[in-house]
C-alpha cells in the first residue's frame, strides 16, 4: 500500500452520496452521506463513470463466501440427495474456520442431471472445487460443481492412496489400479489453483 493513503475510522463521513460518488464495500450510506464502517484505507474505484468509495481494512479481511466465488471444500457426508462439505478456502485465501455447505444432486454436473448419483461423484474426504450458488432460505451455503473446471481435485482410494484422474468421470489408484467413479475437475494449470493445491497438500 502507498504511504500517502487516506486513513479512515468507522463512522467517519467520507463524502456526499450523489450521482458521481456511491458507496461500495466497507462503507454505508445514511441521510445522503457515505460513511466508513471499517478502520482502514479509502480507495476510489471508477466504474462506468461512477466513483465507488471503498474502504479496505489492513490485516486479514474477514472473508465470507458470496455468490459466484470459487471455493475449495472437503466432503464429509454423502447421502442419496446431497453431499455435505466444509468450505476450507475461498479464492486463494485459506479460512481459519470452515463454513458448512451442501451440494445438491441437481448441481453436480451440467448434463444428464437426472442420472447423477452422489456416491458416484463424491466420497467423504474428497477435496473439491465448487462455485457458490445464490444464498436462499437454506441455512447453509449451496455449492455447484456443474462446470468442467469444477469437481474433485484430490481423492484417496479405498486403500488410502491419492488417486490420479483418468477421465472426467473416473480416477485410478496408482497402487491397486482400481478405478473409482468421481466427478473430476479439469484442473487448469493456473497460478491460483496450484497455490491452493500446494496449501491443501501441506494440510493433508
Amino acid at each position: 500500500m502507498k504511504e500517502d493513503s487516506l486513513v479512515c475510522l468507522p463512522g467517519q463521513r467520507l463524502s456526499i452520496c450523489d450521482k458521481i460518488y456511491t458507496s461500495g464495500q466497507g462503507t454505508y450510506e445514511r441521510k445522503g452521506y457515505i460513511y466508513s464502517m471499517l478502520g482502514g484505507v479509502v480507495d476510489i474505484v471508477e466504474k462506468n463513470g461512477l466513483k465507488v468509495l471503498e474502504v479496505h481494512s489492513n490485516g486479514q479481511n474477514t472473508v465470507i463466501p458470496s455468490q459466484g466465488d470459487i471455493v475449495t471444500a472437503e466432503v464429509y457426508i454423502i447421502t442419496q440427495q446431497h453431499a455435505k462439505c466444509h468450505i476450507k478456502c475461498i479464492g486463494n485465501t485459506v479460512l481459519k474456520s470452515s463454513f458448512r455447505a451442501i451440494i445438491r444432486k441437481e448441481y453436480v454436473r451440467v448434463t444428464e442431471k437426472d442420472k447423477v448419483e452422489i456416491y458416484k461423484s463424491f466420497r467423504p474426504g474428497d477435496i473439491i472445487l465448487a462455485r457458490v450458488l445464490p444464498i436462499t432460505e437454506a441455512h447453509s451455503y449451496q455449492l455447484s460443481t456443474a462446470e468442467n473446471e469444477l469437481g474433485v481435485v484430490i481423492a484417496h482410494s479405498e486403500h488410502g492412496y491419492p488417486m490420479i484422474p483418468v477421465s472426467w468421470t473416473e480416477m485410478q489408484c496408482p497402487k491397486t489400479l482400481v478405478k473409482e467413479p468421481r466427478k473430476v475437475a479439469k484442473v487448469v494449470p493456473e497460478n491460483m489453483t496450484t497455490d491452493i493445491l500446494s496449501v491443501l497438500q501441506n494440510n493433508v
Partner: protein
Amino acid sequence: MPVDHKRINGPEESVPYELFARLSGLTSEKAFEQLYKAGKRSDGREFEEHRKIFLKNGAVSQAKGSAYIEMGQTKVIVSVFDPREIPNRSDYSLKGELYCEFKFAPFSCAKRRLHQQDNEEKQYSCIMKKALESAVCLHELPNFQVDIYALVMHNDGSALSAAITAAGVALVEAGVPMYDIITSVTVGIQQGVKLVDPDSLEEQMCQVQFLSEKYQDNNHGLLIISKLHTQEQLCQFYQNGYVSLEVLKSGLEVLSKTCEVIVPLVQKCLIKHITNGIKS
C-alpha cells in the same frame, strides 16, 4: 448459585479478612465526608474528571482483534474472534449475532470471584451485548456470530465501561463492520455530587443510603452510558440506585461530555494501528 465441582473451590464459608478491619475503619459515609470537604477525590482528581486511560490494541495475538485498557488501576483485556456460523441453529437469519462474555478474574476484586459467571457478570455481559449490538452492522454478517470476551484482571471501578470502550477498539481491529466508534463512561452519584469514572471505593459509596441527619439528599446510584460518536446516539443506558429526574438528566450531560473526551484517544489508538499496518 451452582458451584463448579470440577475445579477446586475455596472453602464455602470463607470471608475476606478486610471485612473485619473495615468495620472499625473507614466507612463509605466517612470517606464521602472527607472527599466532600476536600472538594477533590482521594487520587487528586476533580469530581468530573476521568482517570488517565491507557489503551492498546493487539494484546492477544491469537485473536482477530483485541485491546487492553487501563483506567487507573482497572485493567481489562478484550478479545474478538473471527465471525463463525451460529452454532446449533437450523434456520437462516439475515442478521448476525454477537456473543459477549464479561468475566471478572478470580483475583480481580476484593472478594474472590468464582470461575463460573455469577449473576452480576451475566448482567454485565447482557449490557455489553446491548451496547455493541447497536454499533456493529449486523446485516453485514448474515447468519454469523462474533464472539467477544472481556476479562477484568483488576477491578477498581468502572470495569464495564472500560470493557465496552476496549471492545469497540478490538472490533475495529478485527475488521468487523461498525457504524461508529463506541465509547462508554460510568458516573457515580451521591448527594448530588457526580463522580465521573468512580473507583471501587467510590462505586461502593454511591450504592448506599447515608443515614446521618446532615445528608438529606436521597440521590445515590450509578449511571453507565455508551455513545456512538458521530451519530450522537446513546446505544446503551443503565442506571441503578435511587435518582431523581433532574439529577439523571444532568448526569447524562456530564457523561455525554466525558465520552467526547475519550473519543480522540480511541481514534489515536486506531489510527496508529492502521498506519502501522500500511507501513509494514
